[in-house]
């Protein structure tokens, strides 16, 4: 294996830039003109004489960062080991507000390099870095106890710190922890053995990095069965190949492979590694394989040996690092992406938040930026994800906000909560179609959204009377009414509103299955929540109606006195005042809440009864 991936964590104060700069310079991984620049250019306040190399300048980042004197993002650098192997360094900012960046950098790392300041000792930050490395599956940790020159290369001080670090690492699952006495400024034990630490007999930082592979912690580790996430299908004359990067295991011509979750399998007739015919392939290889018989395989499927399957499931326990500015919302529909697999998913519960400094689990209902926590995730259909500890590629996933398209969370599967093969919804003899035949009409959810006081309940009430008079079975789910019972435990934060919408949508879905026309009157201010509600229904079963009324009109009506309370600051979260209302972009129907009531009611009744309601494109 030629490439080692390393995450370097710690703040500039720990001397990280100097340490990395020296590693790069001493391994001749920096061009000569860049070195020359580091001899002549000086930062304001620098005490390093011109003519000597200021190693910290070799890792200088973006202009935006230099202006503010901070590091805001991960930088990638390359280092050549003396034996020719390559180290890809992900240089991650260390401060607490950049936990997410560090987690991202650690996600692909084989080894972590952590700095501890010999004078300051093991800090909260050290614990945090160790916890995140363990969470992201980094097996080998190198701790550089830096600035040893500042404590006179004192053996006692080093031993004390090494014991502290060992104590901190003991509760975490590392294969190896190496603690090295270092002075990055003086070059001691960075790439050459220092004569100022004759009491130390261990490796230098560079040697320790090179020892990572001997630990057997590579993804190619023996005993892990073949997993091939399907990226794409390669087609040519008389050839249809399944292409992807082998996540684990060893694959050879003649091997049997099947699609996870299906019983059929085929044999590998032809195997291409990086486009060239080969007899076998190892983890990390980009392969294309031809199977006989040819299987119905598409992007997002997982190929695996028939005897050793990853069983698809649709509920998982997972650890997540929250990356988004917006906090996690229960019940909101996100896209879950894991390699080539993309599936709608909902976070159904938060189990706890992890205090990454103490390692303690705290009760929590939401997760915000940089939080680490344990959650349960439900996917729309079964996906063959596996424990992250076994397979980083098939156990890691991200959550994507469906409206902003931002990546909001990184997740690591712990285990499947429910194997969908074991739990099936029972097929009852009387089904929805039978109920609808008896009723003489279709079930449907008509979702009225709009500001408080827009007239949703008034319109729903009048529409229900009109429908009832026509012999249609109806029910109104009104925001205020459900909050007296079903949702009385929920408040008005964004998270609670999301959960409120989710529960009402689930109830509406059951009612639609009973063949009822459900009129939902709910402020439901957020597009993402309404989108999640819509996703529960088949096309045509969900009709979104925007009751559009100017906020001034609503405030003048103020049937519940809410706007008056908002004006005095007593009610900070009122939609349209203290909290945004996100108007629907393409509702099936818009009615004017400040126009004639009959017109609005007629339109809603028509929408409830129209045989075909075409859903607008997503």
């Amino acid at each position, binding site marked *: *294996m*030629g*490439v080692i991936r390393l995450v370097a964590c710690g703040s500039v104060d720990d001397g990280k830039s100097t340490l990395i700069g020296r590693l790069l310079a001493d391994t*001749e991984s*920096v*061009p*000569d*003109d*860049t070195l020359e620049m580091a001899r002549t250019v000086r930062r304001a306040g620098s005490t390093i004489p011109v003519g000597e190399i200021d190693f910290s300048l070799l890792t200088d*980042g*973006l*202009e*935006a960062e*230099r202006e503010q004197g901070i590091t*805001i*993002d991960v*930088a*990638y650098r*390359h280092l050549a080991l003396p034996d*020719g*192997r*390559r180290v*890809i360094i992900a240089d991650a900012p260390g401060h607490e507000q950049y936990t*997410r*960046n560090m987690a*991202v950098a650690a996600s*692909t790392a084989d080894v972590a390099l952590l700095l501890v300041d010999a004078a300051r000792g093991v800090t909260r930050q050290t614990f945090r870095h160790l916890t995140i490395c363990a969470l992201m599956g980094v097996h080998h940790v190198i701790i550089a106890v830096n600035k040893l020159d500042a404590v006179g290369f004192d053996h006692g001080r080093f031993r004390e710190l090494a014991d502290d670090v060992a104590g901190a690492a003991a509760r975490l699952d590392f294969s190896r922890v190496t603690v090295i006495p270092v002075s990055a400024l003086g070059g001691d034990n960075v790439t050459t053995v220092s004569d100022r630490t004759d009491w130390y007999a261990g490796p230098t930082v560079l040697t320790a990095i090179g020892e990572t592979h001997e630990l057997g912690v590579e993804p190619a580790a*023996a005993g892990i069965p073949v997993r091939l*996430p399907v*990226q*794409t299908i*390669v087609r*040519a004359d008389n050839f249809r190949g399944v*292409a*992807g*990067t082998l*996540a684990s295991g060893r694959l050879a011509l003649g091997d049997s492979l099947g699609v996870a979750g299906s019983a059929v399998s085929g044999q590998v007739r032809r195997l*291409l590694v*990086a*486009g*060239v015919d080969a007899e076998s392939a190892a983890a*990390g290889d*980009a392969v*294309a394989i031809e199977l006989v018989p040819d299987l119905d395989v598409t*992007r997002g499927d997982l190929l695996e040996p028939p005897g050793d399957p990853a069983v698809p499931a649709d509920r998982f326990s997972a650890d997540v690092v929250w*990356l988004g500015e917006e906090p996690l919302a229960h019940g909101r529909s996100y*896209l879950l*992406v*894991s*390699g*080539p697999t993309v599936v709608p998913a909902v976070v159904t519960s938060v189990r706890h938040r992890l205090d990454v400094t103490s390692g303690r689990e705290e009760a929590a209902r939401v997760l915000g930026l940089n939080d680490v926590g344990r959650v349960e995730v439900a996917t729309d259909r079964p996906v063959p994800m596996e424990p992250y500890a076994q397979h*980083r*590629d098939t156990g*890691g996933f*991200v959550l*994507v906000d*469906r409206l902003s*398209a*931002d990546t909001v969370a*990184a997740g690591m599967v712990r285990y499947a909560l429910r194997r969908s093969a074991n739990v099936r919804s029972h097929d009852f003899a009387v089904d929805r179609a039978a109920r609808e035949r008896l009723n003489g009409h279709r079930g449907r959810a008509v979702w009225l959204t709009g500001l408080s006081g827009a007239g949703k309940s008034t319109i729903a009430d009048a529409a229900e009377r009109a429908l009832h008079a026509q012999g249609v079975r109806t029910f109104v789910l009104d925001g205020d009414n459900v909050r007296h019972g079903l949702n009385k435990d929920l408040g008005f934060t964004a998270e609670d509103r999301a959960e409120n919408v989710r529960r009402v949508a689930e109830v509406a879905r059951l009612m639609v299955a009973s063949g009822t026309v459900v009129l939902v009157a709910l402020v439901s201010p957020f597009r993402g929540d309404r989108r999640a509600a819509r996703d529960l229904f088949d096309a045509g079963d969900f009709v979104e109606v925007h009751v559009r009324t100017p906020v001034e009109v609503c405030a003048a009506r103020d049937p519940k006195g809410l706007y008056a309370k908002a004006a005095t600051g007593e009610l900070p979260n009122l939609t349209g005042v203290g909290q945004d209302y996100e108007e629907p972009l393409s509702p099936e129907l818009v009615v004017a809440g400040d126009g004639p009531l009959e017109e609005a009611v007629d339109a809603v009744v028509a929408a409830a009864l129209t045989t075909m309601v075409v859903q607008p494109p997503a």
Partner: protein
Amino acid sequence: MPAPAAAPSVADAVLDALEAEAIWALRETAAAFRNPVMLYSIGKDSGVMLHLAAKAFAPGPIPFPVLHVDTTWKFRDMITFRGQMVQQYGLDLRVATNHAAIAEGVTPFTHGAQEYTRLMKTVALREALDEYGFDAAIGGSRRDEERSRAKERIFSLRMPGHRWEPRRQRPELWRTVNAQLTPGQTMRTFPLSNWTEMDVWYYVRREGLPVVPLYYAAMRPTVLRGGQLIVVDDDRMQLEPGEVPVDRLVRFRSLGCYPLSAAIESPAATIDELIAEMESTRQSERAGRLIDGEGGASMEAKKVEGYF
């Protein structure tokens, strides 16, 4: 664990790992986006990318078009070579040129290198991406080229107007790409992110790839300007009073518009000689690119505007 028979050398193992990562990125781009395109600059990195794309989809064809941003000031050898590559790989080649700027008389001689590059490369590229509606563009940039590139993702989001927002980069984890785009957003993919300049040359040698002859030493007519050797590639070169082209044994480390590309004096005329020379002189590659010099962080500023 016993070593497998005929274990590849460490150097080959490094190239194999880089190759596999690049193929993964190319396949992901082709599969996850609606209308991807590969930027083709005719240089060595572009040549390696073509080869990788051919391998990624072998035995089938390269499944996306390639786009060359032609400033009309490229070396003649580059255009000839481009034609050969179109033949060899069966490429669907699109050429983008800012004709409006040419009509207004923009040349590397009349405009500053920075303004010229903005008009002829950045603007031409942006217009072509918009015109064809490409939602993903594959580029050959490497992280070792320049310091702002060190923070670049392999899959790098561009905001409406092709702007790069370094503060809002998408987190990149495992082999998992968030390929979702909101209206106006596009993706740039850099499969060679983790390659170094030397890796490119080692790979060219291992795979026996053709490169533009300008990378190898030959006697060429040159003038010395501002300490840089400029090759007089055609009669559009505006010579300054007293300037007389002198034949020198030169080659290029990096190719662009000929009036803006500095040659180096070198006798390296084969791939082995070139690699031997580079192993002994370690100067950063873009030292020969005149456009990078203006302003301390000019690459970062150009990237924010949409330059590759």
